Each structure stands twice: as C-alpha cells, then as structure tokens.
C-alpha cells in the first residue's frame, strides 16, 4: 500500500512538474553588453489601487464568509482608488515615469513604445513588435498588485507592488531575462526578488489609510521607485 501511494505521488508530482514553466531567467552578462538601448513597452499596470488582506477574517466562515470578505475588500479598493484619482494619482503613468528614470540612471538609452494589450489582462505580451533597429531589446512589464496589502486582520496595511519583468532581444524575440520583483511580498515571495516595505507607511486599519491619502500615495510611490530601481540594478 505505501508503495502504491508513493507511486501515485510520484506520478502526480511528475505531471505537475512537467507543467512548471520557468519563472526566472537570469541575465547573462555576455548578452548584457550587447543591450545598450531598451524599448520600454507600455506596461500592463492596473489603475485600481488595491486594498486587500491576504487572509481576510471572513474567509474562515465558508462560502458566505468569503463573499463577504471579497465584498469588503472590493469596497475598500474602490474607495481608496477614488481617493487616489482625486489626488491625480494614475498608477500606470507614475510607474512608467519611475521605471524610465531608473533605466536611464542605469546607463540605458530608453525609448517608450506604445503597445496594445488586451483590456484588463495582466500578463506578458504574446507577440513583440518587429525590430526596426531603433532598440536592442524590448522590456515587457506587468503588475499583479499595486496597492496596500495586509497579511491578515491583525497586521498593518503596507504599500505593495508585484512587478513581472521580461527582457527580449528585439531581433529574434529571445528571452534574455525574466524575473519577478516584489515589494512587501506575502510569504517567501516564491523565488521572486523581495524588497522589504518602508516602516514609515504602515497603517493598522483602513480608516487610518484613507484618512490621509496623499501620504499613503507617497508610500506607494516609494514602493514603485524601489521596484523600478531594483529592476534597473538587475539590468545593469
């Protein structure tokens, strides 16, 4: 019986293992020297500023509890996003500015390239623009999360950014580098680069967070800048 169980586990593990796609591809210094100019493709960044708990207390109470929890988090996200927009904060625009500055600081010649992405789809592009000789590589970015995330009911909300990065060679679209950079990761980050959130911008409840949106957005900008700087550091 234990042998059957072990074989079943091995079969399952092999199936799961075979499906695993590499999430991380280190950047070879030999390829690095050949990339001097980067085409920064307009990133897939949601303009919704998320306010969520990784484990909401409501999730302990079955399906009904989960629905209540989801409703609570959606409501808070909507309220904070409206407050952010009221302050003129647009995630995608802020992010692009921070990344552009970070990459230029890293010595790259950066050209922003407009691309059309499916509405509300946050993933890498399936097809890249044809090379026109103006850049050596394309930088494809999308975010999973931009906002304030708490681990649970008794932990503070902290500014959070999860950025997924892929650098592809312009000529043949070969992936030169792929990574995930997380600011305030939940758990161990699952192999991603993990940046610790600044202590100055933690809020113990939602009321404190929305009470001063300008300061909360400052914390989010710091998170974006740190993520962009880390990306630039990886590409250097």
């Amino acid at each position, binding site marked *: 019986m234990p042998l059957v169980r072990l074989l079943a586990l091995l079969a399952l593990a092999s199936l799961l293992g075979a499906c695993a796609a590499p999430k991380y591809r280190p950047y070879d210094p*030999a390829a690095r020297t050949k990339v001097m100019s980067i085409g920064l493709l307009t990133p897939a960044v949601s303009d919704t500023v998320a306010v969520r708990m990784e484990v909401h207390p409501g999730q302990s109470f079955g399906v009904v509890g989960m629905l209540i929890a989801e409703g609570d988090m959606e409501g808070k996200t909507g309220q904070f996003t409206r407050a952010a927009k009221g302050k003129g904060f647009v995630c995608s625009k802020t992010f692009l500015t921070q990344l552009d500055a970070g990459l230029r600081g890293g010595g790259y010649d950066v050209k922003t390239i407009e691309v059309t992405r499916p509405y509300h789809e946050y993933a890498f592009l399936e097809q890249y623009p044809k090379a026109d000789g103006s850049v050596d590589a394309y930088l494809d970015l999308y975010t999973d999360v931009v906002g304030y995330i708490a681990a649970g009911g008794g932990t503070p909300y902290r500014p959070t950014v999860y950025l997924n990065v892929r650098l592809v060679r312009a000529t043949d679209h070969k992936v030169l580098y792929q990574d995930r950079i997380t600011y305030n990761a939940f758990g161990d980050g699952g192999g991603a680069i993990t940046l610790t959130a600044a202590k100055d911008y933690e809020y113990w409840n939602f009321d404190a967070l929305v009470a001063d949106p300008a300061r909360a957005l400052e914390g989010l900008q710091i998170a974006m800048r740190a993520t962009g700087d880390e990306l630039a550091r990886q590409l250097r």
Partner: protein
Amino acid sequence: MKNAFRILMLSLLAVAATGCASRGPAAVTRMQAPGCDARWDMSNAQAIQVDSLRTVQHSFEAGTGCVAESDGSAVSYAVFRLPRYREDYTLQIDSQINGRSLFAPEVLTLDASGKVLREVPFERFALRGDRLQTTMFFSQDNADEQYLLMRSARQVVGHGERRVVSGSFVIPLVAGVLPFLYMQGTESEGEYTYAHNGVVRLQARSNSPALRRNLQARDAARSEIGFLMR
C-alpha cells in the same frame, strides 16, 4: 474535555501567531588577521560538478578559513574547484539567512595560478525570500577559470537590515456539528546582519535545453513530493 480542547487550540493559536524565535549562531562581524592565512589556500578546494544531484554546501564559521587584510582585519573565505569546461553552464549561488545572521558573499574566479579573472561583487546578489542569490554564466570564454573564491564582503559586514516575514495558518475547529477552518494571516518583524559567517550553497547546471527542462521538471517534482509528504 471541552476546556482541554480549548486550551490546546489557544496554545496552537498563540504559537502560530507569535512564530518561533529566531535561532542560529550569532553574526560574526569582526575578524582579526592573527592566525589567518596571508593568501587564499587553493589546496583544499571543494569540487563543484555540473548537474550533480547533490548541491555543494559550505559553512563559513568563526575562526576557520580566513585571510588577513592589509589593515589588520580579516575576511572569511572558501575556495571551490570549478568543473572542467565541456559545455556552457550556469552556477547558482545562495547564501541563506540563519537566525539573525546572513553571510555577505562576494565571488572571484581564479586561473590555475590563482590570478583573478572575474569578480562578482556583493551588489550582484539579490535577496529572494530568505536567501541572497546570484547566477554566474560559464562559456568557452571562461575556460581558464578553474577556481571560485568566495569571501565575505567586508564593506557590508555588520550592516543590519529589517525584514518582515508574513504567512498564514489554518486551525480546523468544530462549532456544534459544523466543522470550519479558522484562517489567520500573520507576520513577524525582525532584523538580520550581514556577517562573515553563514551557509552557502552552489549548484552548477548545464545549459543544454533538453537536459535543463528535465532538471526543472525533476526539481518541481521533488518540491511537490516534499509538499505532499509533509
């Protein structure tokens, strides 16, 4: 009986909420030159093999394997023998947080005579969860690199970093006749210090696409088995 169950549940909750205290050796942040080697010794180099099932592991401990610096201080070091070049490969290096201490690595590659051919500074390592990690690439151009010297990066040793570790736990409970799962998100805040001591792991992988795919599948399968057997 009911009270005993409640006490047990509360105890479990308390343990899960507070987490376990950080254990491990203290961070060694000062080392003195007396008793240390004047130059790195390559005679006891530990061999690294490509696609080996066993990861090479090395513990940097206080008072062992150190080399004197010109200012009277010292850094810890270890030398590894690189695989003889046959095909392109990558070498992944991990330095893991141990309690409140994290070995601050920097890497040099050397030729047979000990001449430095390449440097990987501390800044090339990135923190991924509980470990600093970097990947080095080896091709025909690096065929002369025969040894890898890892030493503590003295410019960052002693520097402390804040770290927040989050997670969750689940406790199955029975209320009346209905079972339910109590879920809670947790986090703990701590600090680690870059040190001369710690544990590093090195793993060399060939760049052959087919073999690489098999190894990735093998690693994923191992990870799944570990998870299922827990």
